């Protein structure tokens, strides 16, 4: 009745959001500056729940920021620095225009700079927050560190990125926190676990970049500016958590080894320092000298509410982890010059292996090809002349697969010139109903301690032995596979009946009538119940079922493709065998 008339859009969500242009005007910044500020401060647009209400009745496409975010930007010291910089550029231009070199010099000396420390602290109030967000920072730094030193961005940025990336790699080596590696067609993925946080990053393959024209490098440079600051602080903290010097120092003993022979000055010490570090072959100096009994048995405090089984499982997991960390311990690797040195050296060192390479390839080689103690030589060429007895010649994939499998895989599949087994992604965890490639199954069996390798070998042998009567054998095999198929089909049928489609499969016919009737009745009941669902729930249900069905369909498709491929391979094998015999 009484009271003032309430105006629309003056309360509620309409007042919580602000459009981009209004925000820009409120901050009195140009669009590029506003964007830069948003990148540095990590401000992003929000999607309101009721867009029309927030947009004051209009349905035009607009980006909205939270008003609180923008107010928070208002008293940011960097905003003033942006303005100062603008003025500085104007003054400098004027001085150059008037040919007042002295003034220009003076202005340049007083160039306004800003620091991003407080922003890092503000965006990541705790160290773990920073670690959680490190993925993009690392990927970007690794990308920038591969850029050429010309054009595109400042040389200092590239050098800084390289330094930080190398420092991080050295930390990962020192802490042995690498867990997974993956060779993809895009680049090499690594996953490390730092303070319980998985950190994944990707590095491109070492090729010259074909710089695209439709990429705004200024945006990337702004991101990199923030990421380098973040990564620097994170590195500092990480190094100190391991009692290492920061900036890193190469271990005294290793440094002596690294020193080139007299008279063969490689470069100035300051220049070669980063290169020595990036060789990844030397351990780092510690602030406190490590005592011999570093591996003190940790006391175990039982967590409340934890059963003995859980504790046992935890201990087992811990043991497995320790074992994984020492995967390559005691092995000595040698990298041929055609394999990518940095990733392989990094991975091998992360798991305790010793690694070296040709002296002319890179600084930091510790032993020669002819060293008899070398156990594995990584080669990537079709064949190797002059093989030395007593060492394995392997393709680089062996290292990656072994790390992912958490055990040293049998070497026979990885000899030079051999058709490699597929390289699987360690990031995929198959759930029930997903398609699992047979190689993965084999690997899982191997991890459990079974040895599936023998079977296949035997099979092959048998095949070789048998001449004409291998048809029977094959039929048997087919029977087996049929049985598997049946099981699979049964599972599928169950799922299908769940998804309210009665399909009389061949399997169903064999079942007893009674059972079938019962099943039909059940499915009908279900169908009727589905009819009674509310509209919203029915929609949701249908969506979920659609997703499930699509998943099953995709898995089946992959399985069928694999089967077709395997049969084709078998045929081929047989043909070649026959041709050989004839």
């Amino acid at each position, binding site marked *: 009745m009484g009271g003032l008339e309430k105006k629309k859009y003056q309360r509620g969500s309409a007042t919580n959001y602000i459009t981009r242009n209004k925000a820009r005007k409120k901050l009195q910044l140009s669009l590029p500056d506003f964007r830069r500020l948003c990148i540095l401060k990590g401000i992003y647009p929000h999607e309101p729940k009721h867009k029309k209400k927030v947009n004051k009745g209009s349905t035009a496409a607009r980006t909205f920021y939270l008003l609180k975010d923008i107010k928070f930007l208002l008293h940011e010291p960097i905003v003033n620095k942006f303005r100062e910089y603008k003025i500085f550029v104007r003054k400098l231009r004027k001085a150059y225009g008037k040919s007042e070199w002295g003034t220009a010099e003076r202005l340049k000396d007083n160039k306004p700079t800003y620091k991003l420390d407080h922003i890092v602290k503000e965006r990541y109030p705790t160290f773990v927050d920073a670690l959680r967000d490190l993925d993009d920072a690392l990927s970007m730094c690794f990308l920038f560190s591969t850029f050429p030193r010309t054009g595109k961005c400042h040389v200092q940025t590239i050098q800084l990125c390289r330094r930080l990336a190398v420092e991080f790699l050295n930390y990962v080596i020192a802490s042995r926190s690498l867990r997974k590696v993956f060779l993809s067609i895009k680049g090499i993925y690594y996953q490390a676990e730092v303070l319980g946080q998985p950190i994944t990053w990707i590095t491109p393959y070492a090729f010259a970049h074909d710089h*695209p024209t439709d990429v705004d490098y200024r*945006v990337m440079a702004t991101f990199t500016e923030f990421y380098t600051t973040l990564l620097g602080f994170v590195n500092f903290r990480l190094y100190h958590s391991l009692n290492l010097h920061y900036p890193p120092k190469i271990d005294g003993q290793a440094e002596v080894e690294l020193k080139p022979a007299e008279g063969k000055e490689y470069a100035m010490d300051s220049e070669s320092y980063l290169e020595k570090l990036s060789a990844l072959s030397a351990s780092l100096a510690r602030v406190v000298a490590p005592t011999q009994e570093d591996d003190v048995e940790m006391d175990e405090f039982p967590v409340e509410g934890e059963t003995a089984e859980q504790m046992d499982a935890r201990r087992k997991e811990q043991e497995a982890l320790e074992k994984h960390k020492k995967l390559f311990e005691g092995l000595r690797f040698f990298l041929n010059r055609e394999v990518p040195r940095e990733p392989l050296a990094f991975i091998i060192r992360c798991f305790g292996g010793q690694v070296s390479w040709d002296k002319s390839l890179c600084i930091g080689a510790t032993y020669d090809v002819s060293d008899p103690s070398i156990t594995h030589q990584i080669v990537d060429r079709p064949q190797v002349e002059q093989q030395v007895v007593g060492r394995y010649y392997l393709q680089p994939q062996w290292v990656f697969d072994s790390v992912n499998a958490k055990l040293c895989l049998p070497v026979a599949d990885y000899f030079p010139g051999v058709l490699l087994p597929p390289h699987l992604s360690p990031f995929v965890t198959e759930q029930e109903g997903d398609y699992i490639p*047979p190689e993965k199954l084999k690997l899982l069996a191997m991890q459990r301690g079974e040895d599936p390798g023998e079977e296949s070998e035997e099979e092959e042998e048998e095949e070789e032995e048998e001449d004409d009567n291998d048809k029977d054998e094959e039929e048997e095999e087919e029977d087996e596979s049929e049985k598997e198929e049946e099981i699979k089909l049964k599972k599928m049928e169950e799922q299908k009946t769940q998804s309210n489609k009665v399909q009389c499969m061949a399997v169903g016919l064999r079942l007893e009538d009674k059972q079938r009737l019962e099943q039909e009745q059940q499915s009908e009941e279900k169908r009727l119940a589905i009819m009674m669902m509310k509209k919203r729930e029915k929609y949701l249900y249908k969506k979920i079922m659609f997703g499930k069905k699509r998943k099953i369909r995709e898995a089946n498709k992959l399985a069928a493709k694999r089967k077709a491929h395997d049969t084709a391979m078998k045929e081929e094998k047989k043909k070649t065998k026959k041709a050989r015999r004839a």
Partner: protein
Amino acid sequence: MVARWQSTSCSHPRPSHHPASSSVLQDIRNTVGNIPMEWYQDFPHIGYDLEGKRIYKPIRNKDELDKFLEKMENPDYWRTVQDKMTGADIKLTDEQVDLVHRLQKGQFGDVHFNPYEPAIDFFTHEVMIHPVTNRPADKRSFIPSLIEKEKVSKLVHAIKMGWIKPRKPKEDTPTYYDLWAHEDPNSILGRHKMHVPAPKMKLPGHEESYNPPPEYLLSEEEKLAWEQQEPAEWRLNFVPQQYRCLRAVPAYPRFIHERFERCLDLYLCPRQRKMRVNVDPEDLIPKLPKPRDLQPFPTTQALVYRGHSSLVRCLSVSPSGQWLASGSDDGTVRFWEVCTARCMKTLPVGGVVKSVAWNPNPTVCLVAVCALKQVTWHGKGDYFATVVADNSNMQVLIHQTSKRWSQNPFRKSKGLVQCVLFHPIRPYFFVATQRYVRVYNLLKQELTKKLMANCKWVSSMAIHPAGDNVICGSYDSKLAWFDLDLSTRPYQLLRHHRKALRSVAFHKHYPLFASGSDDGTVIVCHGMVYNDLLQNPLLVPVKVLKGHALTLDLGVLDVIFHPTQPWVFSSGADGTVRLYT
């Protein structure tokens, strides 16, 4: 250089080698000067001598063969050049050849020139006791400069006024330090409450491997399909590839693009917290009583009554349950014995039969047949109402059989009337128009209720024998259940059928109702109404009955229950009537 040399060679006729020829030729000096000789290309002469007479080109009729022979035979061929001014061949002397060699090597032309003669200093480097010049120093060199003073005072003034700022002291704080030394979890800003952390990049699957299992590689068709898709609808933004060794893997051309797109996503993409429903789909299915426990209800098709040649529009069962009347588009009404499916009588009516209704009074055996739109009896069997398909106020008429007179209950038309119904107990009259069902009190002659059907076009209506619940079928395939005590809006909207509902029916005694639809099915539902007012009716679908074939996009046209048994009759567009028991 060459031009000069030519002129010199011209000016020195070769006296030593060809004394005779030179004396014969005498001095043929060309007077054309230093001009491009190709100007005389098209003329027979090559210039003019001192006397102004033409110098003719020497007759040259050497072909390639002659040249070759000369090259082979003449030992001096290599040092013979053609004089462009005279056109004559000249043999170079040894000195001239030497000169050419020296010039080619970049040496001086003169043999005797020495470029490395010792340098003699103009002044000695030793300091002598006497100055070279003895000029006294200027006065300006020892008195302070006024200009400098002016400049300095200007600078001082500028500093004083704050125009020039002194150089900033260099900061000596280290670039990196322990930023999180004093971690304070309470310092988390309020802003962080609304913070939506950026989702992490998707981790790669097997298909991204440089050497994936063969099933992940795309076949030719899949590759083609991938190429024809828009980039927005790709499930993978790359084509899986297989390389036989690591050495063969090329650079990924879109690496920088992908990082850049990630950057754009981070700062330009609006974020929203989406609650992901993590629900087992089985939990969504409502827990209903098992249809088995709700028996009896019709489950199987028992009889088919064949005989009509066109679609059967309407059905009616005699109150005793022994007879069935059906009206069809072929212009007949047929009477069937229910148990035997025998057609007892065929009554040609001479028009399309739209509705038949058996008098509910068991003592009177009377069937109302109507070709208008609908006819329906009052429960007592004395009154019946008809509906005419026009838009006037005369659409609905109520007739009394005992007095044989009709009355028009409505003064004004409220829209196209679809069907009407009498309340089984109370003096209420239900009129369904397109979207509403109006309930009139016939005694008080007023509108008591207006039911909102929430559908586009009501097709049929039935009332529960207890009289408190009404169901409405509609052409937009919904069935609305009204609880008259509860609300004027539907208690439940059932969307069981896939196509338009044609008719709905309640059973007289059993808690059953059925609906027939254009999709050819009859759905029987259990509709329990409790006497307790607090308990809502329980609606459970119990059976989907199929049997009618679709003809002309029409399926079931009418359904009706047997008055005593849990049986349901349905008539379809295929000209049959079916009984389900």
